[in-house]
């Protein structure tokens, strides 16, 4: 029972710190975090106008596909890039207080979820301009987001650990993520690639599966079951693996800071 209260307290702490981060970032700015919404709209409309012309799609599907893709991609990379420096940035706290390390990861996931909420506001507006009809199945996207967040959580927990020890890694991760952006169908449609190239590119790309289980329901489509299975399996195995690693190494982190 006491460990349950500990957990609840630690999650509350992570949420408080994460919200404070966002508040701090936009303090004294008039429209505050809605700058996120604005800059995301500009990005989506610029890419949308140019590439939309190139890839003439019926029913304005492209712009819907693009905006959902970019918005969630932004969330993925936000979590992973900040995950790399999660412990390094919390050095002061880690060296003074014995707060469980997952708090620092929850804090950044919460912070990025808040950013996501501001960005997702664009989506309904774009949906109105398209001819896509979405029904209740869109709520499956929430399940997808939960599953993806679990995957991002263990990945950034692990990245935070390794990057604390090896300080070159954040740069490596950042450039890998940049490449992944082009390898994942975000600004291009999956149907544009030849079947064989496409399939190998999708199947081994975790980001494809993660995006698929969130984006497809939002576009009124059913994601391929393999993407659900992939995400659930990596989520489960990844958490288990990370748990075992941290059981051994959590005490070392403070020495690496």
């Amino acid at each position, binding site marked *: 029972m006491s460990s349950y209260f500990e957990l609840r307290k630690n999650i509350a*702490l992570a949420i408080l710190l994460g919200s404070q981060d966002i508040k701090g970032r936009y303090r004294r700015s008039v429209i505050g975090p809605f700058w996120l919404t604005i800059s995301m709209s500009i990005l989506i409309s610029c890419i949308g106008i140019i590439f939309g012309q190139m890839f003439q799609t019926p029913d304005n599907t492209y712009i819907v596909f693009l905006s959902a893709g970019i918005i969630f991609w932004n969330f993925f990379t936000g979590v992973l890039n900040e995950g790399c420096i999660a412990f390094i940035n919390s050095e002061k706290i*880690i060296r003074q207080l014995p707060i469980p390390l997952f708090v620092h990861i929850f804090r950044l996931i919460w912070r990025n979820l808040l950013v996501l909420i501001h960005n997702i506001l664009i989506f309904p507006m774009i949906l109105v301009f398209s001819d896509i009809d979405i029904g209740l199945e869109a709520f499956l996207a929430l399940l997808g987001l939960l599953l993806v967040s679990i995957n991002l959580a263990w990945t950034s927990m692990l990245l935070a650990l390794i990057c604390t020890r*090896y300080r070159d890694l954040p740069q490596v991760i950042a450039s890998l993520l940049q490449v992944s952006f082009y390898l994942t169908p975000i600004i291009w449609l999956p149907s544009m690639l030849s079947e064989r190239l496409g399939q190998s590119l999708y199947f081994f790309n975790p980001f494809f599966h993660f995006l698929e289980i969130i984006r497809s329901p939002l576009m009124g489509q059913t994601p391929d079951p393999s993407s659900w299975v992939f995400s659930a399996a990596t989520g489960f195995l990844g958490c288990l693996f990370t748990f075992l690693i941290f059981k051994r190494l959590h005490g070392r982190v403070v020495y690496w800071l």
Partner: protein
Amino acid sequence: MARIYLDNAAIEIPIFNANSRSLKSKLIQLASGGKLFTDTSGRITVRALENLTFSINDGERVGLVGHNGAGKSTLLRLLNGVYTPTHGQIHSQGQVTSLIDISLGIDHEATGRENIYLRGALLGLNKKEIYAKLDEIISFSELGDFIDMPVRTYSSGMHLRLAFSVSTLINPEILLMDEWLSVGDENFKHKAEVRMHELLESTKILVLASHSRQLIEKTCSRVLWLEHGKIKMDGPVEVVTKMYFG
């Protein structure tokens, strides 16, 4: 019942230089069989604490003395769970709170009120507990309407008063301190002194690192004298202070 027991505990802190910290040198090391980089591959570690075995029981007030670098702060961090011993073990019973850096977590852009919640949460209080004590904290800090102003507008005295007022509202079983907390002008100093004594009354174990003989003699019943990470002497306050301070 609070108790701390150290069994042969040691702390070795690895020192990473720029070379051994990068992945590249690790890879080169692997490739070259470790010969080329013998100077960096032999990891340099600092033995901050060596083979400490002692126990602190309920009701004890322990002073830590020793020169700079003797390991006092490291020991305090070991006791509050920040460091896990690299060798040996530590067993502690009872909730530990450290008042080492009372300004930790204070966000200068946030208001005093927001900072009360932040600082409180870092000390392990939940929102309800903080809310219940909010008025008490605000009145104790004497910040008045400034409580809703960003902390960066505070004078350093006000800043410390805020940090002190939140940080001392805890009821730990084991309290760790690095020097005495004294803040503010004469009037506040007196209030703070009273608060500190109340805090000491309610804690079961105190571990206080200090360079002040007067403070140690006034507060502690037992003194641990550390030198180069080892215990040089451990005994009643009169005996050890006499040896240490002369």
